[in-house]
């Protein structure tokens, strides 16, 4: 009898702890969050596919440091250049990765950095051109070891 109640208590506690863990877990960015993050940048403009090249290894072993290069086909002249490049993800705890602001003086619209990916997911790069149009490219990446939410030892 005593054993039984301990057992019940244990499961009760374990269940409670599991519930707590679920509620405490940081919310994963969803495709909706990705869409709204993109909306915050582009407003009501339509985003066309093309011009942008997003280079990320398709299979990533360690999501903590993933090399990424974004380049945009542009003459980078005062009358026709890339004003900014915005990179987003689908499943990290938050949808933004980075915003990069360039100008005609850049000469070449290309930026490289290293990013974190918490899961296998889609990465989207959007370029804002001087004529106000938006162009995008996306890449699906498979990640073996996730970043961002692991336990600190």
């Amino acid at each position: 009898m005593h054993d039984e109640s301990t057992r019940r208590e244990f499961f009760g506690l374990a269940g409670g702890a599991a519930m707590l863990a679920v509620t405490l877990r940081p919310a994963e960015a969803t495709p909706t969050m990705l869409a709204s993050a993109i909306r915050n940048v582009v407003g009501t403009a339509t985003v066309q596919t093309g011009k942008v090249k997003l280079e990320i290894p398709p299979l990533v072993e360690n999501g903590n440091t993933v090399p990424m290069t974004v380049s945009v086909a542009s003459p980078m002249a005062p009358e026709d250049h890339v004003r900014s490049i915005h990179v987003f993800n689908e499943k990290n705890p938050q949808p933004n990765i980075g915003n990069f602001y360039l100008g005609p003086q850049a000469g070449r619209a290309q930026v490289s950095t290293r990013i974190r990916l918490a899961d296998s997911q889609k990465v989207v790069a959007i370029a804002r051109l001087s004529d106000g149009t938006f162009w995008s490219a996306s890449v699906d990446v498979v990640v073996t070891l996730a970043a961002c939410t692991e336990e600190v030892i």
Partner: protein
Amino acid sequence: MASALINVPAKAKLGDIIEIKTLMSHIMEPGYRRTASGETVPRDIITSFTCRFNGTEVFRADLFPAIAANPFITFFTTATGSGKFEFEWIGDKGFAETTSASIVVE
């Protein structure tokens, strides 16, 4: 102690497109990780990086927790004259670092 690594060509010809590589040592704690006891490790990231040439901004970036530790950023600029590139990183917990590199343009 924070430290930066900068790679700017020492010399360039007028009008050349040059590549600038920058690396700043920083933990870039995303703010989503937990300790074994379940406490969240507070966010500590660099939020902004700016590069100016002779005082004029030539490149700027907003960084988010999805940028890997020790942010490595490379970009391009046109050599418009001799002068000094200034680099500035600003982040959480009052993080602010600057460094500079000179270029001779012929």
